[in-house]
């Protein structure tokens, strides 16, 4: 066969592949690849900690992240018209992937040949183009608060010492009295009387005994809600949590299959336990949580679900609710049969108490939701610190920067940040970055679950003009406070893979001016490994976000004014609901930006920008403006968020100001100040003040 014939046949064959066939190939590939990934994750999870120290284990973990991340990223580009040249434009990167030379040789060549004059790892002058020293911090009122978890394990008492079911155990006042005295020592039960306790238990038992279905049970609870105090309602919910925990379905956990259960199955399992003392399988934490939320709502209690990690790295779901304790409303979490009062309506702070109870900090999978769906991620103070330590940037903000520049950001330099609690030193080179981060809870904030943290972060950068790949790993050692003046140690590795694509097109240039179109996309995937185990958060993969966007820029013919308009979206991988936990991709943000830069005179430029975002939890607007001259630059910023879920994310207003002074070609000072006011549902407004001074020294 001649070469031409071969080409023709190849083309013919390619044309013959129908879209359905392509879809089938794709599905078959995804299926086979997921088998490889599951095998890898399973292999890593079974490893004993000693083996985790082996270099090959880290490499296998890295490969596991890269294979899954590469698939998701590639699919994001499916159907896009992108030339190979545009994707990996830099010769150095192309060189590395050629197969006829060993990658090690090519890497050395890439670093050592044409870059050898710039690359000298320990030559500070070569490494740092600039040195940035920043001193700053946030100032706010720190409340004092002490709490303890309250367990109600009533159903544990249905067996006697011989393991035989005590007939009508719930009618035995001696058993109840013992339980009452234990509970009565703790909030929120300090004011509950013995009579109130007995009437709540009687009401629960009668409602269960008389109902034939879950619906009847909920209806009964609803009809009694006006007669019960919040303390009595909490007792009933704890007791139901205890019964469902005794009926926990371990088969679902072992087989890793989420079996469909119904409210009726859950209710019958409670009734069976109450009347015969026999345990029958109900559901796992997600399903139990959903049932408890339905029960709480039937009792007229506002309730929701929260996901997060527990000690050892397992993933968990538990309900949260609002309870009135001595006339003061507060967020209380319910972990099956254990009540965790938080003493606050500030959700960020309440999560800190949950972390102290679980003795674990959820870095990547802290989602809030209701009985029907998983809503959005929420963060505690500790999670914010860990994200900073791991160098995790907001995906959408990162894309906005790329769209504004029209090219990939390349940073080199030494940065030292000194805050009141956090300190960081960061060195970034053309290819590598390394950072050390330290945090101390110097305010002894009861809502900060971290006592201290130190982190070492490594990053690898491959950046061309249009395509950038950053892969990094942060080794974190931390001490987590428990609820009782002690702390536990936890180590984890957070893997990060970020890919940016940006393309800039000059559409027209002539007497009417110039129009430029910047198109871009950012992908970010994070994975967490705790004490040598892959955390099963989000199915072992951590979190994934993709943000595509564009910016259209018009520059007038005299180049004295610039006007731009841009749009971006954001998609996040998460679970559909807490019971079935099917993975979905959800559109979580749409943002529109309009801005202008006008040359007022030869020496001064005025800039104004307005950004409006529709988010999955509310709306955000941001207006900023400033004036810049050769030496001095000043700017003001106003940001307002209107939350549709003020229980979890506060509505807020932020006013910020920045003054930059450039004292010559070698140095500049930036002074930043801000005031933020936040308001959670039913809570008073809280102010926080931020201040920062940055000294930037340019070496070359």
């Amino acid at each position: 066969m001649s070469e031409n014939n071969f080409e023709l046949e190849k083309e013919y064959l390619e044309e013959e592949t129908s879209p359905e066939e392509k879809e089938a190939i794709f599905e078959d590939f995804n299926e086979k690849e997921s088998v490889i990934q599951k095998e890898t994750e399973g292999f890593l999870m079974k490893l004993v900690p000693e083996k985790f120290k082996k270099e090959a284990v880290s490499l296998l973990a890295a490969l596991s992240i890269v294979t899954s991340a590469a698939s998701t990223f590639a699919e994001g580009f499916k159907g896009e018209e992108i030339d190979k040249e545009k994707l990996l434009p830099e010769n150095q990167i192309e060189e590395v992937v050629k197969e006829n030379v060993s990658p090690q040789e090519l890497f050395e060549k890439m670093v050592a040949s044409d870059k050898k004059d710039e690359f000298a790892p320990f030559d500070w002058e070569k490494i740092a183009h600039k040195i940035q020293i920043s001193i700053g911090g946030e100032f706010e009122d720190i409340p004092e608060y002490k709490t303890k978890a309250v367990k109600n394990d009533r159903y544990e008492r249905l067996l006697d010492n011989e393991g035989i079911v005590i007939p009508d155990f719930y009618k035995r006042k001696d058993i109840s009295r013992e339980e009452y005295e234990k509970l009565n020592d703790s909030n929120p039960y300090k004011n509950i009387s013995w009579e109130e306790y007995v009437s709540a238990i009687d009401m629960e038992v009668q409602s269960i005994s008389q109902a034939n279905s879950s619906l009847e049970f909920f209806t009964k609870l609803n009809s009694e809600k006006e007669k019960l105090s919040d303390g009595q309602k909490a007792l009933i919910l704890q007791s139901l949590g205890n019964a469902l925990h005794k009926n926990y379905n371990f088969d679902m956990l072992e087989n890793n299959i989420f079996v469909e259960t119904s409210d009726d199955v859950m209710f019958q399992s409670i009734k069976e336990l109450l009347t015969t003392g026999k345990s029958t399988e109900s559901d796992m934490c997600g399903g139990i949580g959903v049932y408890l939320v339905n029960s709480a709502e039937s009792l007229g209690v506002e309730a929701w679900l929260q996901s997060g990690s527990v000690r050892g790295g397992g993933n968990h779901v538990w309900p949260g609710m609002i309870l009135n304790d001595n006339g003061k409303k507060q967020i209380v979490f319910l972990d099956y049969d254990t009540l965790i009062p938080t003493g606050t309506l500030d959700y960020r702070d309440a999560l800190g108490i949950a972390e102290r109870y679980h003795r674990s900090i959820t870095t990547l999978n802290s989602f809030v939701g209701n009985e029907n769906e998983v809503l959005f991620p929420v963060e505690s103070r500790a999670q914010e610190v860990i994200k900073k330590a791991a160098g995790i940037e907001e995906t959408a903000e990162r894309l906005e920067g790329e769209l504004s520049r029209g090219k990939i950001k390349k940073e080199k330099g030494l940065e030292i940040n000194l805050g009141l609690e956090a300190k960081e030193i960061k060195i970034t080179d053309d290819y590598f970055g390394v950072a050390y981060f330290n945090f101390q809870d110097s305010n002894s904030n009861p809502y900060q679950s971290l006592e201290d943290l130190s982190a070492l972060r490594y990053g690898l950068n491959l950046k061309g003009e249009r395509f950038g790949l950053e892969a990094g790993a942060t080794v974190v050692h931390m001490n987590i406070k428990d609820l009782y003046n002690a702390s536990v140690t936890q180590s984890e590795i957070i893997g990060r893979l970020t890919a940016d694509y940006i393309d800039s097109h000059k559409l027209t240039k002539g007497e009417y001016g110039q129009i430029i179109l910047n198109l871009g996309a950012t992908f970010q995937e994070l994975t967490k490994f705790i004490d040598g185990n892959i955390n099963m958060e989000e199915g072992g993969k951590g979190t994934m976000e993709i943000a595509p966007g564009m910016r259209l820029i018009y520059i007038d013919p005299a180049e004295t004014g610039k006007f731009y308009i841009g749009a971006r979206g954001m998609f996040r991988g998460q679970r559909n609901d807490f019971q079935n936990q099917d993975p979905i991709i959800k559109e979580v943000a749409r943002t529109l930006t309009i801005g202008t830069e006008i040359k007022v005179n030869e020496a001064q430029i005025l800039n104004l920008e307005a950004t409006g975002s529709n988010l999955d939890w509310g709306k955000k607007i941001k207006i900023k403006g400033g004036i810049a001259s050769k030496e001095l630059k000043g700017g003001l910023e106003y940001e307002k968020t209107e939350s549709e879920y003020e229980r979890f994310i506060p509505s807020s207003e932020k006013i910020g100001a920045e003054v930059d002074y450039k004292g010559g070609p070698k140095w500049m000072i930036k002074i930043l100040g801000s005031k933020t006011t936040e308001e959670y549902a039913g809570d008073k407004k809280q102010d926080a003040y931020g201040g920062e001074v940055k000294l930037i020294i340019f070496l070359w």
Partner: protein
Amino acid sequence: MGIFLGFPDKIGLFVNLLKKKIEFAKNPTKDLAEEILDLEHKEIHGLMKEIE
């Protein structure tokens, strides 16, 4: 110590994998699917063997 910093010899593999997957996403063929799966399988099993 770092997951990626210690493996400059694998950068080629990571970038190559990403490149092939983008090609595959644009035009899925059985050959390319097999090539990618072989590559992943070979690397992953090689490492598993080394760890064991």
